[in-house]
């Protein structure tokens, strides 16, 4: 399915959801109302975050030179590329949904696929705010074990995945 068709389908589904919520409010269907409220509050959270994230990504696109990205994140960057991946993942905000557009930008600027997948995977592993919460509620042993197991495995998987896809001329789209 083309992305355009998919977007229309998604809009239709969201509209169906909207009609259901509106109907629930009119008829007093409690779970539907609850869903509507949850939807509104998460939408508000996203509305606070997404414009900033997309503006920062676009500024990155406009200002950062392709050569710079290639040097630090590209095929020849070696271990340094993955270190940058860890740093970038640690600094990322929101959830995975912010990591995807960042990945797309990195791809267009010539970053290696393996580094991009490492970044995306690690965005789910070592975002700093999240890790801080984990540390304080679950204790240092929990956090150290999780990071110690997940980070190497994610990087190994990303290297394999990136190599295979690079050979096949894979592209990240929008």
């Amino acid at each position, binding site marked *: 399915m083309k*992305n355009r068709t*998919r977007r229309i389908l*998604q*809009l239709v*589904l*969201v509209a169906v959801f909207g009609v259901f919520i509106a109907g629930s409010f009119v008829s007093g269907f409690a*779970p539907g109302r609850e*869903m*509507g409220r*949850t*939807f509104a509050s*998460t*939408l508000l959270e*996203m509305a*606070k975050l*997404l*414009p*900033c*994230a*997309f*503006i*920062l*990504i*676009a*500024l990155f*696109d*406009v*200002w950062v030179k392709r050569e710079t990205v290639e040097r630090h994140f590209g095929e020849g960057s070696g271990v340094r590329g993955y270190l940058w991946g860890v740093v970038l993942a640690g600094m990322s*905000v929101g*959830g*995975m*949904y912010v990591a*995807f*557009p960042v*990945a797309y930008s990195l791809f267009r600027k010539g970053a290696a696929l393996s580094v991009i997948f490492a970044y*995306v*995977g690690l965005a*789910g*592993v070592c*975002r700093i*705010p*999240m890790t801080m*919460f*984990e540390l*304080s*509620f*679950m204790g240092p042993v*929990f956090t150290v*074990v*999780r990071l110690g*197991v*997940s980070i190497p*495995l994610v990087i190994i*998987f990303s290297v394999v*995945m990136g190599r295979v*896809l690079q050979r096949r001329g*894979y592209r*990240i*789209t*929008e």
Partner: protein
Amino acid sequence: MLILYVVTGAALAASLIASASRTLAALKLAAVRLARVLPAFGLMLALLAAAITLTPQETIQRVLGHDSGPLGVAIASLIGSVTLMPGFIAFPLSGALVEKAAPYMILAAFTNTLMMVGVLTYPLERQYFGRNVALIRNGVCLLIAIVAAIVMGLVFGEISL
């Protein structure tokens, strides 16, 4: 959150001083890209709202504190995969469950999959990475999350080889 606004504002200001036309181009780019993914975001939030409403926190708490064997890991991984929950909710919840003697292994399976595996973000991810890569990536992340949970169980002495 505030720091994000400060950083974005500072970056925009610096960009404006350097070149107004490039800044305008960047803002246009940001708006177009955001508009392109909005339908997927809307769908994701609708699914999330449905998931949260249909599985209330008490249910999650009961399930996570209940079964400690392989089945518990499987259920915890499933819940973590299909939910989106910010860290500031998930970890206090898990911390409270630890106090109630829920196994670390089960909680690890839950929080790891919560962070690494995204069923609800799949429609969005597919748009960027394509179906196959999105599926493989999430599948492998699920495995990694479970491996990390099992190691956690070993470290905390909840299971032994």
